């Protein structure tokens, strides 16, 4: 998993690539914390994410709760077929903003 971050106008944009599994979700969480993801809108670019497991979903859930508390927004962009499928199974397509 690789991730690059850009912060401007109150929005944290993260471009993520590779697998979002048990190990990498933890890494991503640490990276997001380091970048400072509180009181900002979060824009996640999933174009190059191969797949996401439930560990990754847990991270997304935590982020979603966090932005909802501060009335910010979380957007996930460009999910592939497998990630879409995972989101569907977990019911994420109903609660997340997926572009």
């Amino acid at each position: 998993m690789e991730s690059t971050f850009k912060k401007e106008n109150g929005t944290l944009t993260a471009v993520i690539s590779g697998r979002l599994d048990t190990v990498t979700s933890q890494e991503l969480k640490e990276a997001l914390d380091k970048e400072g993801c509180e009181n900002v809108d979060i824009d996640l670019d999933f174009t190059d994410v191969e797949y996401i497991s439930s560990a990754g979903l847990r991270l997304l859930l935590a982020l979603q709760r966090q932005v909802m508390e501060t009335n910010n927004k979380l957007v996930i962009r460009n999910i592939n077929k497998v990630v879409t499928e995972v989101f569907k199974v977990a019911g994420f397509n109903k609660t997340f903003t997926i572009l």
Partner: protein
Amino acid sequence: MKFPIRRKIFFLTAILSLAFIVVSVSVSSIIFSIRSKANVMSLCQSSAERIASEMEDEHGDFIQKYKEKMVERYNKNYEDIEHYSDMPVDDESFNEIKEYFDDLVADWFPPKTGFGMSYEMLEFKNNYEDTLRKLDLVASSEGMMGGFICLYDAERNNFVYMVDSTSNVSYHYNFPCSIERVRNPELVDALDAGMPKTLAGREDIFSVFPIKDKEGNVMAYVGFQYSMVNLESTQSSFILTLVAIMIVATIAMVIVYLLFSDKFLVKNIQKLSDTAIEFSSKLERNEKPEVLSPDIKTKDEIGALSNNFVMLQNRMLDYINDIETKTAQEERMQAELSIASKIQLESLPTKPLVGDKFRIRSFIRPAKEVGGDLFDYFMLDENRLFFVIADVSGKSVPAALFMMRGNELIRSCAKRGMSTEEIAEYVNNELCRNNKEGLFISSFIGIYDLNTNVLKFTRAGHEQPFILRNGVADKISEESNFVLGALPNFRFTEDSIVLEEGDKILLYTDGLNEGINSSNEEFDYDRIKEGLEKGSSDILASLFSSLSSFTEGMEQFDDVTMMLLEIGKFGRIELKNPKYEDIPVVTDKVFSIIEGADGDKKSEMGVILDELINNYISYAFTDVSKPELVMDISISGDDMIMTFTDNGKLFNPLTSEAADVDVDISERKMGGLGIMMVREFTQKMEYDVIDGKNRLTIYKTLR
């Protein structure tokens, strides 16, 4: 009741004693009544005879004189005498009668006091009183009513009383000169003849004896009377006494008998019984067994029984010791055998051997006894797989030792690069040397070349393997060589077959096809064929379970050994103490095994692996000291079967509750979501327990 034998003895004794009392009392009372009547009659008679003789000797003159006076009065006053004698006696008449008779004899009967009496009168008085005393003495001492002296008037058949010892205040008293009629004809005849007579009447027993003067003429009679009432009362008092004595004696006897039987019979039997109970309960409690003596000192049958019982205990303890010794020996032998069996099994490969293009694995279920089955497989070099399956004739330790010898020979020959026929030839000749036991080995030796896909093999008297190709199972290797170890210098020939991807070769020993069911039918080749064609992710386990249900209730007689060579894409990953960091490594390995799969399918596989391995680490292995997770992959065409075998706590993930995805996001728990993902991305999932381990099998298409 605690001691019923006591009660029985008591009742039996009591009933017998009662019967004895009744019988003996009735018999003795009958005998007594007969005897006593006769006794009394003879008593009366002898008393009369004795007194008559005394009267003759001592009072002859007195009687003579008295008789003369009496006869004179009697003749002169007969009518009055008759009148008063016949008068019924009661309280009123008694004095009148007494007065009459006293007056009648008053002039010559002396007054009560001897004052102023003449000598003659005094002599009469003395004689009279003497006579009376003698009669009274005899009568009272013999229990008679009384004795008397009387005359007999043969003309009128009358007794005329002279002296009567019956008390003169009694109504039975006969006053001197009173009369009594003699009515009994027998008595009359006797009296007429001057003979003695004894009679037993209804009311009394009566005996008279004549008193004679010096010339032999009858002067008077002495008589004695015995009351029947008296006799009967004596008799009944005798019987009462007898009964009392007998009851007392019988009770005493019964008590003595009971005490005796109690001491020598009941108590001893109780002792025997107690000892037997104690002995057997000691045996039951597994206490140190010892011989218990019942403490019976009598030398009767019970004593003999007691001695026999002690003997029996001795025998039993000897027997128990024998059995214990034998059992210990057997246990030791059994332990040695199981060690031998373990050593034998340890020399065989335990894990599947998995290459890129093949997988070979085995299944062995040894019989109770050490058997002689063997199998082995290993890589000769990068491209050549060597395998052998064999069965030694016979069983137990000799077979196992022969097998180990054969195994070592085959292995070393194979490692020297020999072909299968060369191996067979060499091993055959080696085994033939010094084979005094006459053991032999049937075997199938194969070498599979991964580059050419050619399997070369030599079958030496072994069961024909099956090949499963395109869902159809058939036997291969029609012609066989001879078994190893029987014929020296036998020329073995090698055969070959080209294998294709998806082929499965099943090798087995006769423990499989010769498995017997309760109807004595063999499992046989058809069922093996059927089992293979049925298809399963674990053919060996499925075949053995078919065999087990076929031979249900029968003891497994022979080792069941199977070996399966599968051609295709395989992979095996073993994780010891798995950590989260292992997940990417495993994922990369699996991706390389399923290289060529669609990208999406690979990603799905990535999700599956992450979910499952995460689950194992987070939940299944939390309390396991040496966690181990083994993953086996087999790919045939577009389809992949992957098994996850773990030694964590037994848990069937397929029955776990699905996560509720419709709950509001803030309340959502993630548990169960992982398994939902796995379910979503697989065609089929199966769970079973194999050798005490969880096994999850997933089926996934790769395109």
